[in-house]
């Protein structure tokens, strides 16, 4: 019995020692990297999107005609884009005359990447459709582009693809709620993208200009921008015109109703 326990202990110690030695010497050796993911995702997406078009009975959409390009990012600006996880985001653009890209020029895909170099990607429903779709003969079938799986070669090229997309600034607030002194804030979010978001927001209440607020946000962050002046009593709507120097923003001014204090 004593001998058995000793052998088991020795084996455990050996395994742990070997494991830690391997990990200590290898460092960041994950095969899941940004360039591999970007290359694999565009290939896989182009194939399933062309298959979707074929099911719909459309002609002329081929994987090559889509010119898909992607930029992937793992968990915000400060993290290295390496390793498995459910926090990978990929921005992808492609060319389909019947489905134009939104103003920012890309759709956002959420990826769950596993350590075995396989991933599941879910696209934006506005661009890729829902779980089921109608085929050319009117039957309801599974949409191959709604969610799809892919695997990439762990030995494939790891040179950067050089594809970058701007972060998208969004106004998150749906109402303006001034306090007793008329002070209010505007909540904005900056999505995944290359450099984060920077620019200014011009604020006006009816014809009265309330001034501009400069902003600078890191990618994948939110901020509450304080309005430069008090909202005059009796104002029913406040309009925000976003001008972005870095990143992409809402092309049209955003008008929000005022909710009384």
């Amino acid at each position: 019995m004593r001998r058995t326990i000793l052998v088991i202990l020795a084996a455990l110690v050996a395994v742990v020692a070997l494991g830690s030695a391997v990990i200590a010497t290898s460092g960041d050796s994950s095969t899941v990297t940004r360039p591999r993911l970007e290359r694999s995702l565009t290939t896989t997406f182009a194939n399933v999107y062309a298959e979707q078009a074929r099911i719909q009975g459309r002609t002329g959409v081929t994987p090559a005609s889509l010119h898909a390009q992607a930029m992937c990012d793992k968990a915000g600006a400060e993290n290295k884009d390496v390793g498995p996880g459910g926090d990978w985001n990929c921005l992808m653009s492609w060319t389909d005359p019947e489905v134009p890209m939104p103003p920012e020029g890309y759709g956002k895909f959420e990826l769950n990447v596993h350590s075995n170099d396989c991933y599941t990607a879910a696209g934006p429903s506005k661009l890729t459709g829902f779980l089921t779709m109608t085929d050319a003969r009117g039957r309801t079938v599974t949409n191959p582009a709604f969610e799809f799986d892919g695997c990439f070669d762990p030995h494939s090229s790891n040179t950067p693809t050089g594809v970058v997309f701007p972060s998208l600034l969004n106004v998150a607030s749906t109402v303006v709620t001034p306090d007793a002194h008329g002070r209010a804030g505007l909540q904005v979010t900056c999505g995944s993208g290359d450099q984060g978001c920077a620019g200014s927001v011009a604020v006006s209440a009816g014809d009265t200009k309330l001034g501009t607020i400069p902003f600078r946000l890191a990618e994948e962050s939110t901020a509450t921008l304080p309005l430069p002046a008090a909202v005059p009593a009796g104002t029913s709507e406040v309009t925000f015109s976003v001008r972005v120097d870095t990143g992409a923003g809402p092309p049209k001014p955003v008008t929000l109703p005022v909710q009384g204090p």
Partner: protein
Amino acid sequence: MSALTAQPAPTGSRSVPRRRPGLLAPLRWEVRKLRAQVRAKAVLIGALVLPVIVVVVIHGQSRPPKDTLFGRFATVNGFALALLVLGFAAQWVLPLLTAVVAGDVFASEDQHGTWKTVLTRSTSRGQLFWAKTLTASGFAVLVLAVLAASTIVSSLLIVGHQPLIGLSGQTIPAGEALRLVAASWASMLPAMLGFTCLAILLSVWSRNPAVGIAAPVVIGMVMQLVGALGGVEAIRPFLLTTPFEAWHGFFADPHFTGPLTEGLITSAVWCAISLGAAYVMLRRRDITGG
């Protein structure tokens, strides 16, 4: 024993020239013992029947098991279903199937106290070791073939053979898909034989069939868990469960076989070390008691 073998062969009974029996005689005995074993027969029948039940049950689901590779199309595509079952089998079923025989083949002699009996037959410990190892490996090949054939045939008959969407999104025609699915099942063999060798080592070392059968399955599941962790991926190439995922490369476009080659090396190293240790243990063991 040496006194016995030194005696001249009894004349008149047979005219075969007298020699020490080779590997064939103990191998024949081991196979005969295996064929008489209820457990081994039950495992083979299970490998034949259970996939059919699994295929029927999954085919009847209204929602496909999407969180597993190829699960998305498993209810509508026979090839996808065969690959879903493959992914599940690799988690613990394949190590268990081989360990049922390999984990027992040495330890059962301890359990029944029959080491002295088998070694008094004129066969050396080395020959006996290789006979038992070959029997266990042969059983692993057989049970994998039965499981693969049963899964593929039942999937194709029950669900159908539609073109398959591969792991680069490409559409794979049915004929090509069948070839790739069969190759994927075959690619399980190296790692499965690795588990066979591991089970033999545990069987020789523990002298206890329960340990020989259960421990490889537990070790396999721990390796699976460690291999799925982020941050410790450097250890993945050394795990015996990583080769179980090498088939993913067959379904990408272009195909990649790097993981398959690495998996072959990993499995061979695990097998060589396990068998080597088991052989040394058996040779040095003092078998004088019952």
